[in-house]
């Protein structure tokens, strides 16, 4: 009897939020006053209150770790990413500051927010026999586009989809140390380091699919090396990782294979859903900051990786979804005030991405801010005693205007 009462209280907590915390405490005390004389019942009550004790403070947390079951009732609450999932799914996928936070707090907690929930609901209801829908997360700087994307990716991972995740497309168009002319096509350029890095990450994330999927055609890399038809995808990836020279082409081949096999149109065994998640998708159609050997600027078209990615962005395949997020922070040659899709994508990008489903991400509202504030307090991140008072909270609200990234940076300095 006591156990089902406990669960009911938890559910009520989830839905109503802060106010119920006080009433729960009140009911606990009330129960103490009406302790009956028999010792057994006393023990049972003591047990229940002792186990319920840690919960009153964690109103901003939810114990629902599976994104499939996140709903509107969970908005504003933090859920914990299981460490095993973090290692597999996000070897380099999470934003660097969030990785630091995971290290500091010893846990990775993500807030459930409306844009991510919206995306997940679209994914649940989409028809996967048709061409994939393109979703674009857009919004002001620091509002949480990348984190929402990671949340949705976690959902896809738990659903068992194959994930193609490019954490930041901007990294492929700037600061490249080695730019080799492509071995296969004369007018293109390869980026071996970035390509092999990405292949390694891809391998870690999608371990279980690699042996099931087979290549559909023969790929010739050099005069002596080639991959025959019907080889498992894992071999293709190893080829790319070991031979850096041809790694960019391997990436292109892998993407092509996935496109062909996504809807389960070829061999029946490998029916899987494919999600292509690109952060900083405006990098694909902007300008690069790389220079060719004759000191002219490189176009993104001329880079193998970008060219292949653009092919993935087209919806001429089926059985999956394309999730993208715009980003101004890593972009080159874009002013800081630009945050709208047509500004960041440019004309060319906008035309190629159209039609897409825009999902807007904005600053925290009151409840979400409250939740974040309580989370930092809980983790003892806000050390100064003034930050615990009402005025301190008002100061925080003013200084960051409820922008998630600025709040995070503000608290880090405190």
């Amino acid at each position: 009897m006591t156990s089902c009462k406990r669960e009911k209280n938890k559910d009520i907590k989830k839905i109503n939020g802060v106010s119920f915390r006080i009433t729960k405490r009140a009911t606990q005390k009330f129960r103490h006053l009406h302790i009956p004389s028999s010792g057994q019942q006393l023990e049972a009550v003591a047990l229940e209150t002792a186990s319920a004790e840690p919960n009153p403070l964690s109103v901003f947390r939810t114990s629902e770790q599976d994104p499939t079951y996140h709903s509107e009732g969970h908005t504003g609450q933090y859920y914990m990413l299981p460490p095993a999932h973090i290692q597999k799914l996000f070897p380099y996928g999470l934003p660097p500051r969030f990785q630091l936070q995971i290290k500091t707090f010893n846990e990775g907690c993500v807030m459930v927010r409306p844009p991510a929930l919206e995306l997940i609901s679209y994914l649940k209801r989409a028809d996967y026999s048709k061409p994939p829908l393109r979703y674009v997360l857009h919004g002001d700087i620091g509002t949480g586009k990348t984190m929402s994307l990671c949340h949705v990716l976690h959902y896809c991972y738990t659903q068992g989809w194959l994930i193609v995740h490019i954490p930041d497309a901007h990294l492929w168009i700037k600061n490249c140390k080695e730019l080799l002319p492509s071995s296969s096509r004369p007018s293109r350029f390869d980026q071996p380091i970035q390509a092999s890095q990405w292949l390694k990450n891809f391998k870690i994330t999608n371990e279980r699919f690699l042996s099931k999927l087979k290549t559909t055609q023969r790929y010739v890399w050099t005069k002596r090396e080639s991959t025959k038809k019907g080889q498992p995808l894992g071999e293709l990836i190893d080829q790319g990782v070991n031979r850096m020279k041809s790694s960019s082409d391997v990436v292109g081949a892998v993407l092509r294979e996935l496109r062909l096999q996504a809807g389960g149109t070829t061999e029946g065994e490998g029916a899987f859903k494919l999600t292509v998640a690109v952060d900083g998708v405006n990098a694909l159609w902007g300008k690069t900051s790389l220079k060719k050997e004759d000191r002219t600027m490189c176009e993104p078209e001329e880079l193998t990786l970008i060219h292949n990615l653009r092919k993935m962005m087209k919806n001429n395949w089926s059985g999956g979804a394309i999730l993208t997020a715009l980003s101004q922070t890593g972009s080159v040659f874009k002013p800081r005030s630009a945050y709208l899709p047509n500004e960041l994508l440019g004309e060319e990008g906008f035309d190629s991405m159209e039609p897409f489903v825009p999902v807007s991400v904005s600053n925290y509202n009151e409840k979400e801010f409250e939740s974040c504030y309580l989370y930092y307090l809980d983790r003892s991140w806000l050390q100064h005693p003034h930050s615990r008072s009402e005025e301190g909270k008002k100061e925080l609200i003013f200084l960051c205007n409820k922008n998630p990234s600025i709040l995070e940076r503000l608290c880090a300095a405190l």
Partner: protein
Amino acid sequence: MPLWLIVSATMDAVSSVKLPVRQIYVSSSLWKKNLAAAGPQKFTQEFIDKQVEEFEVGKRHLANMMEEDPETFTQEDIDRSIAYLFPSGLFEKRARPFMKHPEEIFPKQTAIQWDAKGRPFHFLFYTGKQSYYSLLHDVYEKILAIERHQDKMRNKGLFTSDTKQILLTGSRWLLKEEIEENLVENISDQDYMRLIQLMEKLLSMPYCSLEKEFILKFRKQLEVQSSKYEIPALQYDPQGVAFSVADGRRKTAKASITLRDSGSGNITINGRNYLHYFPVLQNRVQLMFPLLFVGMMGRFDIEGSVEGSGHSAQAGALRLAISRALLSFVSEGEVEKMRQAGLLTADPRIRERKKP
């Protein structure tokens, strides 16, 4: 040959032979007068009278130049005219050209204190600080007079201790420098403290109100600073929401603000959100400070426009404008607190010119 030998030679043969005297070359600083030893420059009374005459004539000329009535030309008019005729960009106000009465320019000097035979006029001349000691003497005389008055009242049986007391709030004792100026003498710190103690003793007596004028000569009134600020008028827009408009300046930046009541803490500057306009944390803290100080953080909506100078100066200008706009929403005591916190003072620092 060394000098002393020559000297001794001259001493021996002074009567008979006139030996040549060798010139000793020394630096010219030995021949100059030791200026510091002479003391402050003394002006004769005739000199000062002449200066006063010249000043009066000059005043009439100036009034003529400015096409105003020479008879009713006051010192303020003189200051105004000089500032107009000789505009100066110097920061130090005392370095700018001025035209003042010679009394204010030349330091007060004591006339000769003794007669033709060398006999001093004042009986305390040989104390060295005759005005100071004579002042102490006078104060003590008054104390004795009051005691005598007290005794008289006691004898008559009319002694009451709750007589009219002198109001001392809003004034302070004259400073040592001011007393020195009045006495035209230098006094030491201990002398000053002695004088103040004596005045306090005078004040502690019940019938001190008899000497009120004398005591008030030694007290200086302090003005109430906060009454200087003009509070912007509180206006109401058609919906009945109160708002006020104010300006602020810092370096070359000029800001203008509309502060609306019953808002939610949104701030828009030049059409953009303040988070985008001021990415630097320090500037946002500057914006926050007036509201935090007064404790009205989430109450107002601010719409501002600012131009000129750099981001820090713009933030400073906005802060001043917000503080001024807040004056109309805040009580008197708060205004004084804000003034003491430095929110209402315009920062006078400007960029210095380039020097070679």
